[in-house]
């Protein structure tokens, strides 16, 4: 279900969805559409689609551990950027506490890149405990191309 919180353009939009991997494509489509509505550059759209997908996958596979549970994704404008909040009712887990992989190591670990990709694709990632149980993950990214990218 997609609901518009306000009828005005460039206001926050929310999608509420059951935590299932089969629903990831739907969430990516929501992120793409909302980013475009907010005036995001292609770079920003691609990055937020990636970041939200990785976060949703983590919540679905690790947070809820394959059991069903609700996930709510809210996107809206912030100064010069887009803010995404992902709310779940899964056991508390703070992805910001996970260390960065050593990409210069002689042993690559392709299976542990999700949180690294969220960090790489966003300007900030913060975690809060959700009142009543669960997590709120907030991702912020500037609307345009970032200076550190080529």
């Amino acid at each position: 279900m997609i609901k518009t919180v306000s009828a005005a353009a460039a206001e926050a939009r929310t999608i509420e969805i059951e935590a299932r991997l089969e629903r990831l494509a739907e969430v990516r489509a929501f992120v793409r559409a909302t980013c475009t509505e907010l005036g995001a550059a292609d770079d920003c759209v691609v990055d937020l689609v990636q970041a939200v997908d990785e976060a949703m996958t983590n919540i679905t596979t690790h947070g809820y551990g394959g059991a069903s549970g609700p996930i709510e994704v809210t996107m809206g404008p912030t100064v010069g950027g887009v803010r995404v909040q992902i709310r779940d009712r899964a056991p508390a887990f703070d992805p910001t506490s996970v260390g960065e992989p050593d990409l210069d190591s002689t042993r690559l670990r392709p299976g542990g890149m999700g949180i690294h990709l969220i960090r790489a694709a966003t300007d900030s990632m913060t975690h809060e405990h959700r009142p009543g149980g669960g997590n709120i993950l907030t991702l912020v990214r500037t609307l345009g191309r970032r200076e550190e990218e080529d």
Partner: protein
Amino acid sequence: MALDITIDQAGGDTAVVALTGELDASNFTTLIEAGRTLHADGTRRIVLDLAGLSFLASSGLVALHSLIRILRGEAPPDPEEGWGAIHSLEFDVSGGGVQNEVALVAPQAAVERVLERTGLKRLFRVHEDRSAALADA
């Protein structure tokens, strides 16, 4: 968008596998399964055409890594064993990393960005088109 996997035998022990759509956590095991079937039928090298792939999730990286292992006759991770097994996967890149079992063709910018940000790009030769990849065997 779903993932379509199209397979063309390219002669010898090489297959061209074209991915169209989005490779994510809901479908990455189908690519691993396709790799198992190809290996069982004698394929030892895959040219992976990514021109039609618009999205690559981190789980898709596990599938790419699994293809290499399968073509080497090594056991890929069994997704049934859960994500703990997937997270503990390692790939030895002490010799530089680039390998010949899987070559990539025409990745879109979004897909290439994921390969670059995760350091996995150094595992692959990346070609502009299929014929260049096949000539490089």
